[in-house]
């Protein structure tokens, strides 16, 4: 499935979960700030995507996929200390979420707040990655 097709299905799931108009949803729409999502809405979107694509998105997997870099053996404490991203954590997060305006990820950014960065494109990327992994399996 190509990215465009994934995007259309992700968009439909976001529209259904949040009850927003289709025209409001763009790839770079931030789910919290632009579309008014709450944390439970993310769970709703996750369940809809799992059903739609036949994949499993683990709770920590959304962030893990955002923060893990292939070929590197980083420990949690290299990236997050007392809930706050380290300078390396900030760098990795910016790299792994290119769809997010880097100006939003500032010093002292909390790991808790990563979901507030999620855009529609974030879910497209996660689904694409999981679909590719599923294809390999």
């Amino acid at each position, binding site marked *: 499935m190509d990215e465009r097709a994934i995007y259309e299905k992700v968009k439909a799931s976001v529209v259904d979960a949040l009850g927003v108009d289709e025209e409001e949803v763009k790839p770079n729409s931030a789910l919290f700030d632009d579309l008014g999502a709450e*944390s*439970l809405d993310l*769970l*709703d979107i996750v*369940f*809809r995507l*799992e*059903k739609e694509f036949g994949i499993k998105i*683990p*709770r*920590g*997997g*959304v*962030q*893990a996929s955002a*923060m893990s870099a292939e070929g590197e053996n980083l420990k*949690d404490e290299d990236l*997050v200390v*007392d*809930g706050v991203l380290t300078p390396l954590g900030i760098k990795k997060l910016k790299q792994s979420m290119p769809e997010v305006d880097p100006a939003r990820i500032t010093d002292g950014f*909390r*790991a*808790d*707040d*990563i*979901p507030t960065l999620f855009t529609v494109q974030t879910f497209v990327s996660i689904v694409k990655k999981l679909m590719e992994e599923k294809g390999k399996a």
Partner: protein
Amino acid sequence: MGIGIDIVEVQRIQQLAEEHDAFLTRVYTESEIRYCSTKKNRHQHFAARFAAKESVLKALGVGWARDVRWTDIEVVNDALGRPRINTYGEVKRLMEEKNIKVILVSLSHTASYAIASAQLVKKG
């Protein structure tokens, strides 16, 4: 020391439970499902437990980080009916790493909203 608080809409939990078959089993332990299912207003109890799990995660400062499962945090009631937190897996490991002895929790719910607060108590 750490505290966390969370509020959820009962109706939202009910909707998720009704629309997604996997919701209850992904989020709640068998014992939690058993307990809540016996209640007349079961979605209020499910909602309060969801708020409890979120408040514990906030107190621990993990958010969506790490490979944490909802079922790693379980709300049980002691002999006096007071809620207690059991932890498993990654959350249990995290408690040991942070030297936390116990997590205190308080729950409350109405027909519309459920709220929970959690407090971490360190060893020693």
